[in-house]
């Protein structure tokens, strides 16, 4: 009876723990890229996974960092626990207090504080800094796991062993360690797990061109997950299960060899040689894997560091560029422009070529972070439509620093089955009828743009009165909003989670493909027209390659490949002519009419004070006034 209740209880908790994992495994076989729609059963993500060097490389990095940091942290942590037992209570409490610091601090603080440290020490960020950071936050987990056990250990045991003539280390290994081992192992397991799971600290200490699985995933959570990641996670999960079962089988076989002794009230916890072998084998395998993919230690000479938004290029284009020029492209993705900017402030030579949006380009020009382009090296710039270069002057007055890459409008994506009236005004986002059905952009400028345009203000206003009115409107709107999202809007709209969403025009073609009930409108009050352009950083280490990169992307057939892949409007007029599907070539969404563009403006950089004003107002909006 009692054991049945226990089983049911364990079962419920296990279901709770594994429901999301089952979901992920199901998603890994989903034919549709959107997690909100079932597109039939497929193996293609698994097949693609093994061709994806980036993911495999990130996996190898993750495992190697996790393994080394776990071993180092476990050794240091266990020694510390033993040492602490002999110290005065006060020093012990003090050290345990210090130990709590990395755990209690927001990860972002730990990450940034370490980043500052490495910067002061002039330590080049990369593999080593990530490793140091991981050891730092792993030791506390080992300490917290081992310490309670340590306190239960009778020092006489160790003294007894010493008394029997054992060397101190031998005595420790034979007398104390076996008792401590379960706790040490659980500490190590915890450390390994934390290392696998960490994102933020890694992000701030990793430098450019180095990714672990979680930094890669975080990029994608905001941009939309590549289903290959689901496939990889499922594989990892299955591998771990298999390892577990195997090790317990080895253990079981060894157990039956010797005659079972009756030891009813105590179970000895020791690692059998079978388990030790399994652990060793896995270690070797992981290291081999790392060396094979070589991303950890290899640094080649002719490299180009590219920093782009997520899913903002056809990966084949990168391969083609590498094949043609022999330049090795290190391609990183940022999730928001703000994070990209923070990164560049930290290390201004981290990337050679970047693709930010209009106002951010202005800001970077303003702060002297960009280099003038060598237009002679970019002959293909001639394929960019004159009107786009003209628009770009709003943020790059002489077109000296940037070449437009994509552009589009911001508008309302709505579900025709859920919205009856025509969508012609931003007002609809304040309509109580759609309470809980509205998705707003989780981005300061886009959110304020909606409120400003609705009231007929400029979307670049810095007038405090206008701004606070806009903020009040947004606060009033907040109860109606289901969520503030970035790219999640896509999946949620496809899945019918919401009726209305503020979205970039580039997402429309893809979402309509997945859910034909969706329609897009740029409200009559006007909106934002945005341009993303490629820029080269002031302290770029390889500016020549950066120019080649930009030139390559301006080729009409390359621009077309990118358009087909990312479905964002291209300013490359030659490429547009090459689009075969007439409906798309003439799509009002992909290439809005002059009439629409006339009521749209670009964002300009508002200066530090303007930014601060917006930030303050935004915080108020998000926390409800």
């Amino acid at each position: 009876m009692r054991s049945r209740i226990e089983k049911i209880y364990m079962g419920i908790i296990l279901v709770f723990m594994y429901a999301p994992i089952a979901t992920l495994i199901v998603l890994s076989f989903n034919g549709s890229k959107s997690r909100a729609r079932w597109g039939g059963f497929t193996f293609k993500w698994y097949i693609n996974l093994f061709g994806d060097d980036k993911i495999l490389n990130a996996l190898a990095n993750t495992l190697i960092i996790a393994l080394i940091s776990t071993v180092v942290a476990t050794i240091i942590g266990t020694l510390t626990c033993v040492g602490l037992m002999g110290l005065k209570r006060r020093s012990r409490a003090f050290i345990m207090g210090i130990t709590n610091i990395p755990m209690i601090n927001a990860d972002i603080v730990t990450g940034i504080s370490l980043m500052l440290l490495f910067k002061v020490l002039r330590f080049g960020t990369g593999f080593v800094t990530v490793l140091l950071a991981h050891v730092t936050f792993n030791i506390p987990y080992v300490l917290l796991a081992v310490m309670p056990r340590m306190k239960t250990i009778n020092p006489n045991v160790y003294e007894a062993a010493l008394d029997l003539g054992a060397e101190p280390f031998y005595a420790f290994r034979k007398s104390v360690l076996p008792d401590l081992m379960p706790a040490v192992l659980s500490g190590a397991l915890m450390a390994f797990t934390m290392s696998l799971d960490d994102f933020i600290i890694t992000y701030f200490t990793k430098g450019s061109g180095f990714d672990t699985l979680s930094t890669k995933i975080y990029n994608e959570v905001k941009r939309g997950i590549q289903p290959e990641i689901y496939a990889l996670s499922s594989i990892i999960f299955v591998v771990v299960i298999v390892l577990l079962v195997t090790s317990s089988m080895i253990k079981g076989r060894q157990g039956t060899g010797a005659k079972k002794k009756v030891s009813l009230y105590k179970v000895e916890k020791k690692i059998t040689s079978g388990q030790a072998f399994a652990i060793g084998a896995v270690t070797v395998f992981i290291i081999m894997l790392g060396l094979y993919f070589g991303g950890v230690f290899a640094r080649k000479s002719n490299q180009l560091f590219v920093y782009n938004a997520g899913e903002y290029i056809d990966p084949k284009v990168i391969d083609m560029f590498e094949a043609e020029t022999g330049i090795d492209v290190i391609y990183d993705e940022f999730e928001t422009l703000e994070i990209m900017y923070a990164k560049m402030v930290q290390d201004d030579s981290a990337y050679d070529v970047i693709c930010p949006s209009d106002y951010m380009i202005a800001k970077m020009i303003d702060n002297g972070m960009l280099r003038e382009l060598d237009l002679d090296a970019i002959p293909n710039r001639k394929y960019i439509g004159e009107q786009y270069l003209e628009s770009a002057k709003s943020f790059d007055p002489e077109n000296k620093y940037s070449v437009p890459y994509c552009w589009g409008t911001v508008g309302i994506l709505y579900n025709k089955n859920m919205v009856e009236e025509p969508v012609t005004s931003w007002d609809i986002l304040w309509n109580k009828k759609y309470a809980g059905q509205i998705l707003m952009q989780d981005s300061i400028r886009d959110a304020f743009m909606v409120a400003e345009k609705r009231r007929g203000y400029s979307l670049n206003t810095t007038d405090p009165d206008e701004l606070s009115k806009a903020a009040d409107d947004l606060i009033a709107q907040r109860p109606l909003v289901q969520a503030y999202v970035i790219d999640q809007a896509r999946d949620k709209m496809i899945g019918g989670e919401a009726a209305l969403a503020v979205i970039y025009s580039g997402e429309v073609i893809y979402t309509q493909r997945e859910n034909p009930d969706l329609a897009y409108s740029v409200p009559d009050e006007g909106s934002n027209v945005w341009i993303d352009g490629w820029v080269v950083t002031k302290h770029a280490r390889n500016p020549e390659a950066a120019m080649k990169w930009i030139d390559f992307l301006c080729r009409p057939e390359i621009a077309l490949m990118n358009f087909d892949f990312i479905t964002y409007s291209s300013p490359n007029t030659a490429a547009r002519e090459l689009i075969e599907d007439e409906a798309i070539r003439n799509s009002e969404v992909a290439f809005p009419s002059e009439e629409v563009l006339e009521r749209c403006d670009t964002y300009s950089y508002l200066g530090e004070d303007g930014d601060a004003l917006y930030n303050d107002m935004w915080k108020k909006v998000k926390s409800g006034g």
Partner: protein
Amino acid sequence: MFNSRKTSRLLASPYIAWAMIFIIVPLGMILFYGLTDESGAFTFANIAAIAEPVHLRSLILALILSVISTVICFFLAYPLGMILARNKLSSQGIITTLFILPMWMNFLLRTLAWMTLLENKGVINGVLDFIGLPEINVINTPGAIVLGMVYNFLPFMILPIYNSLSSIDDNVINAARDLGADAVQTFFKVTLPLTVPGIISGITMVFIPALTTFAISTMLGGSKILLIGNIIEQEFTLSYDWNLGAGLSIVLMVFIVINMVVSALSDKKGEDR
């Protein structure tokens, strides 16, 4: 090793050195940033900023949600720890690992999966619909954030509690029964007090990350619910106001002190050896 202070120092020294370089010094930098303004002049403004309604509200909300999550975790984990510890004879290693295994799938992915499960048109509502029960509206509410916290941090509660429970000698429990205590008295007078170190560990390991999280609140709260972690994150990544971000972090560090005091007090009893 236990008695010689010199050996003890030697053993603890690598970590002490490590902690100085990688914990204390960086912390000093945060303090520096938190106590200066952009021009580098000394100020308390960044710390006083916690009193602004926006910040205070997010701090209080974060405290409430993380306390609730910690309490739920405790009440889920303790019985589970007891079940696991009691079944020592079975393959407990595997069973224990089963509760940690989910953490090997990236927590962002797992949280994303919860979105898929909890959404209004998500899996759970689909199932509820199918069996004719009313749908639930959890996503983008504080409830969803609590669920995400409990889900992500539960293993941190299970492990230390299980560890301290399994290190109790069966005969200590038997002794209590033998001396006339019934099951309930035995639990409250013996089992529970003996596992206090594990409970403290567990609470620390759940409460703190829950208090400072921003990813969970962003994903399951629809970015509508700002916790103190979100505010700090925004100061660093969005507003570049590192001074303010650092100042607010210093406020969070008050909780380190509280935690240290609690641990030190609970450590006192076992210390009289």
